[in-house]
């Protein structure tokens, strides 16, 4: 056993060697934030998709106010979807949760065209959610599946309105 005097005398030269041999790396101070996982990336895309859907519903409702009784309940459900999706997002502080709409298509020239456009947007959103199921955690997969089922009911509601 080394005495305290011997240890202090030897420490400037031997301590680094001792630490290297003992595989002690010391604290990882100021390391970067953890990378965003694939699952989180997919979730952020789902958030963006919902925001885009909400934008196009708002645009349709403003352009064709007579469609409000049909569109308002569906729009409210999309807002609920967005709230649930955003509630699941946990990202490092440096990562921004998307808040912007990334697609702003021109609205259809007639009510029927606008409804068909909404239906196409819903169908695309369903396909996107379904493609994300495999990489999601069980609870997130259930949320995606439930939202996709909700959007499938929207497709039927919009189809019915187009035919009326």
């Amino acid at each position: 056993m080394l005495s305290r005097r011997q240890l202090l005398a030897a420490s400037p030269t031997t301590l680094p060697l001792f630490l290297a041999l003992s595989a002690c790396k010391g604290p990882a101070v100021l390391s970067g934030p953890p990378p965003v996982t694939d699952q989180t990336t997919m979730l952020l895309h789902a958030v963006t998709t919902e925001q885009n859907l909400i934008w196009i519903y708002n645009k349709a409702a403003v352009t064709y106010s007579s469609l409000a009784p049909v569109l308002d309940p569906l729009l409210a459900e999309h807002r609920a979807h967005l709230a649930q999706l955003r509630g699941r997002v946990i990202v490092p502080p440096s990562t921004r949760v998307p808040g912007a709409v990334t697609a702003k298509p021109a609205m259809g020239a007639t009510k029927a065209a606008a409804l068909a456009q909404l239906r196409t947007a819903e169908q695309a959103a369903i396909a996107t959610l379904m493609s994300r199921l495999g990489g999601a955690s069980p609870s997130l997969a259930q949320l995606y599946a439930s939202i996709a089922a909700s959007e499938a009911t929207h497709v039927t509601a919009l189809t019915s309105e187009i035919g009326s």
Partner: protein
Amino acid sequence: MGANTSIAAMQAALAAEHAAVYGYGVTGAMLTGSAKSLAYADWRAHEIARDTLAAMIVKLGATPVAASAAYTLPFTVTGASSARRLAVVLEEGVTRAYLGLVAVNDSTLRTFAARAMQAPATRAAAWRGSTVAFPGMPSTTGR
């Protein structure tokens, strides 16, 4: 989650389909006209889904759960209004069961279940006359 969990979730979905097939017998008996035709079409859809699930379970080496001889209805069905309400309850039960199957780790089963729950969710909306935000989820999720 392993194969046993997957089979258990499939059996739960099959049990829900059995209940729906039985329940639509009651529902259809109380309806007339186009509503009766709709109930018949939905009843057939559940028979097909039941047979599909049973075949999948057999393929995995398990014995599909059998239908019960009779089921206790959640309320007394006395006319068209309660028959429609029963149809909603049946479809919601099937939707919920498929959502349970979505939680398994097998991605093929997951996709199957997610696709399968869209039809009962849509039928529930048709009988209810309105859509919900989160089909199959507990109502606290913001329906």
